[in-house]
């Protein structure tokens, strides 16, 4: 219906190789981008800083993890620790007076270095063993951060982020911080959209399917596994520093616990492993489903006079994550992105469903 392919005739190779060959896709993306760009002036500031900002940040993180898990097939259960390293590294640099632009990159590099050190374990093992190694990494990094007062900042263990500016614009109020998060998310999305068209992305896909076979084809598994960990940890570190600067404003070790890792994992499982669109959907669902459920329960409790125990409402997010992860793995392992793709494929040939796609 909307996604008409009829009448599109490519006469140049560049046209055929563009990211979005369908006009409707391009229009949709421009519309979404325009809405996101105008969001601070369109919506209430509560919605911008309370919903859109975390959505953008968590989506960026999920995209970084998706590069590792979806593209190259390496399991990482400690992504929260990676983000924590980036956040602490960059906040310390900012406190020392380093400009934020450099501190963000440095935080990313620090995460990439430490993440690759642990990910180096991936060279010897895979599957469940790698899952265990990264889980252990989460605990070790947590311990190191919270137990060294040099890093976590003394007994109170909360590190204030000083006022910073990005490219000369002070990051105060919700508008500049929102645009910083949007910019980072845009760059990461652009990178992810293009990475699968490079030799790097194709090498990662070969690695995911069968690493021995990839090795026989001449792809250095050593190099590309380390690179996958490096790139993904770098993105994680940068996003961690964005999270600290724009959203949290004061970081403490418990913000980067295993819960964060599980949350981001749930986002990419629900959204769709190995897709760029997936993390956007998955993050929205994982972030907002518990809030919606809680509001719904509160509403029903209010209208029908039921009194729900506070423990039940407190544990609702965990139940929702668990149920969503299980449900998607059992019924739609490729996640919300696949559901969207099904819908799009249906409309591509509508009303001739027997037609070849």
């Amino acid at each position, binding site marked *: 219906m909307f996604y008409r392919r009829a009448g599109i005739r490519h006469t140049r190779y560049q046209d055929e190789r563009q990211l979005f060959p369908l006009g409707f896709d391009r229009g949709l993306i421009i519309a979404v981008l325009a809405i996101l760009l105008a969001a601070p002036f369109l919506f209430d500031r509560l919605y911008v800083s309370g919903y859109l900002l975390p959505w953008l940040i968590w989506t960026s993180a999920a995209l970084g993890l998706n590069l590792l898990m979806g593209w190259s097939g390496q399991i990482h259960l400690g992504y929260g620790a990676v983000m924590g390293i980036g956040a602490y590294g960059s906040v310390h640099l900012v406190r020392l007076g380093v400009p934020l632009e450099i501190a963000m990159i440095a935080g990313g590099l620090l995460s990439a270095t430490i993440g690759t050190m642990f990910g180096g374990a991936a060279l010897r093992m895979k599957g469940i063993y790698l899952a265990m190694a990264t889980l252990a990494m989460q605990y070790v990094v947590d311990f190191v951060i919270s137990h060294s007062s040099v890093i976590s900042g003394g007994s109170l263990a909360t590190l204030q982020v000083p006022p910073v500016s990005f490219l000369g614009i002070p990051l105060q109020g919700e508008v500049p911080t929102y645009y910083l998060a949007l910019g980072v998310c845009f760059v990461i999305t652009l990178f992810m959209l293009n990475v699968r068209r490079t030799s790097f992305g194709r090498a990662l896909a070969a690695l995911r399917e069968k690493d021995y076979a990839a090795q026989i084809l001449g792809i250095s598994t050593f190099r590309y596994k380390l690179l996958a960990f490096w790139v993904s940890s770098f993105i994680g570190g940068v996003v961690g520093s964005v999270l600290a600067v724009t959203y949290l404003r004061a970081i403490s070790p418990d913000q980067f616990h295993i819960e964060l890792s599980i949350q981001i994992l749930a986002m990419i499982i629900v959204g769709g492993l190995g897709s760029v669109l997936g993390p956007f959907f998955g993050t929205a669902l994982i972030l907002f489903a518990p809030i919606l459920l809680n509001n719904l329960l509160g509403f029903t409790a209010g209208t029908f006079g039921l009194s729900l125990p506070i423990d039940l409402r407190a544990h609702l997010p965990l139940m929702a994550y668990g149920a969503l992860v299980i449900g998607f793995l*059992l019924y739609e392992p490729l996640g919300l992105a696949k559901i969207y793709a099904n819908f799009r494929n249906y409309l591509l040939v509508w009303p001739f469903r027997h037609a070849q796609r």
Partner: protein
Amino acid sequence: MDWILLAELSTNGVFVGLMYALVSLGIVLIYKTSGTANLAQGAIAMTGGYVTWALATLVGLPIWLAIPVALVTMFGFGLLMERIALRRMIGQPVIMTIMLTLGVEIMLRGVLPGVFGAAVKRLDIGMPQQPLFVGELLLNRSTMIGGSISLLLILLSLFFFNSRFGVVMRAVADDQTASWSVGIRVERAIAVAWGLAAVSATAAGVLWGSTQGVDWSLSLLLIKALAIAILGGLDSIPGVLIAGVIVGVAESLATGVLDPLVGGGSRDVVAAVIILVTLLLKPHGLFGRHHIERV
């Protein structure tokens, strides 16, 4: 360092380690038969603790009846979990199965405290709490009893593997296709492995629940159980016993020796360090079999 403190710490560590080993027994059982890692084992232990508590307190069964009923219920729970969730995942990548068990873990960790309340539940199975003095050593009586029961149960599972059904399960563990072709019902063997894993987790949940109370923190046993399973080699039951003792002693010594130096909390990181060191030095653990992979 005085040797009495060291001896005390190691003796207590041995028994605590045996209690950890009971949790990891289930992980090994499942990995042995079906080759999937069960990250929900800690949450299943927590579920077992909650079920026993609910049967004893809410239903009002006497404790000697509540525990067997809980064990049977949890056996059914294990079978059900395998039937509903894990069987559909056959043929999917390892990532998916691991994520599924993690999903079960998250959900159980939300559902049980949500339904029964998050406060710590007291589960009294009649174990004496006062410490025991052996010479100059001060020993924790409840962990001693718990550790001994765990040891008994793990030895029992070793004997089980020599029974007729145990041989069937070993065959499935060795080669699923081959055992399928000689008429063994592979699905049933895997289902029973899940049931038995749930039973061992429940036993662990009851023992731990009676020493530290039943609440969501029982699911944190997972990381220690994983450390034991990895150190022992994921598919070896004697490995579980020995690695359990090693992990328990290491953790106990770390608590006693390292805590004053780093300011507490080293108990939680010992298991993670053991996992990392094992994976880097000897990925298949002390007693695990090496898998040879062909393209």
